[in-house]
């Protein structure tokens, strides 16, 4: 399978996301001005500071030419993973419910967190154990939604790093094919850096894509 990793001006986790995805399949970078997803099987909107986070995190990136294709891809059932700034972009684009607000303590937070996999049946979590250890690094990560959402990941008790509502760390859309999370699974793919739990998310996507291919065949 092939992952596509979007690169906006200001994105900084694109290469880590590509390297992580390459541990389970092929992965190539997709430029924000291109209207071509190059036939990828899953799209990753990575972390960073797209368009400098000007106005609001993700507010400008959602109008990038490539995002029109991502929205079309998502609406057709394609798997889309948004990490950190990618999560913010998917919320701004209306592909995911809710919004990300500045951390309740106003500070940048960078640390390993324990996560509970609330829903192990999504295309993004089916290979995940009940808990994951993955780092977070953000200033605008406090999840908020005025309406009920489908929670996939929660910060374990005592691990909420930003004041997120109901300890929410990751959500899916109603159709279950678009997933956003603040923690960075692409930074947890090798025991050398403390954890390889993030790989389980990439493996889950591969499994889901492989199953879809079988159904199509």
């Amino acid at each position, binding site marked *: 399978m092939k992952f596509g990793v979007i690169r906006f001006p200001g994105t900084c986790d694109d290469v880590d996301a590509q390297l992580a995805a390459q541990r389970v399949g092929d992965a190539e970078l997709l430029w924000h001005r291109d209207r071509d997803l190059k036939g990828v099987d899953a799209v990753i909107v990575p972390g960073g500071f797209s368009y400098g986070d000007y106005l*609001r995190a993700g507010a400008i990136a959602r109008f990038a030419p490539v995002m029109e294709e991502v929205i079309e891809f998502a609406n057709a059932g394609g798997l889309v993973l948004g990490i950190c700034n990618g999560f913010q972009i998917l919320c701004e684009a209306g592909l995911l419910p809710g919004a990300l607000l*500045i951390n309740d303590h106003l500070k940048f937070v960078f640390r390993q967190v324990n996560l509970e996999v609330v829903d192990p049946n999504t295309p993004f979590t089916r290979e995940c154990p009940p808990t994951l250890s993955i780092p977070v690094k953000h200033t605008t990560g406090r999840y908020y939604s*005025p309406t009920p959402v489908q929670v996939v990941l929660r910060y374990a008790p005592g691990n909420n790093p930003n004041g997120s509502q109901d300890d929410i760390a990751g959500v899916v859309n109603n159709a279950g094919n678009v997933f956003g999370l603040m923690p960075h699974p692409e930074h947890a793919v090798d025991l050398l850096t403390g954890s390889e739990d993030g790989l389980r998310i990439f493996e889950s996507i591969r499994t889901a894509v492989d199953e879809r291919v079988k159904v199509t065949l």
Partner: protein
Amino acid sequence: MRVRVLIRPKAGILDPQGQAVERALPALGFSGVENVHVGRLVELDVDDIAQLPSMCERLLTNPLIEDYEIVEGIASHS
């Protein structure tokens, strides 16, 4: 026409920036200050002011978390 858009966090949503400012003011000797909120200001020259609400809802604000107020009749910078 010069227009000013005032953007505020929606009522009921935790505003830690406002709280931080509210806590800082007494430290400087200012008393009797409460309900401090920190938002954003966007100023722009537009030909057709009727476009403003749509601009606000599609880009300038996130209606889920922010309220906006359009102020007309602002003196132009240029």
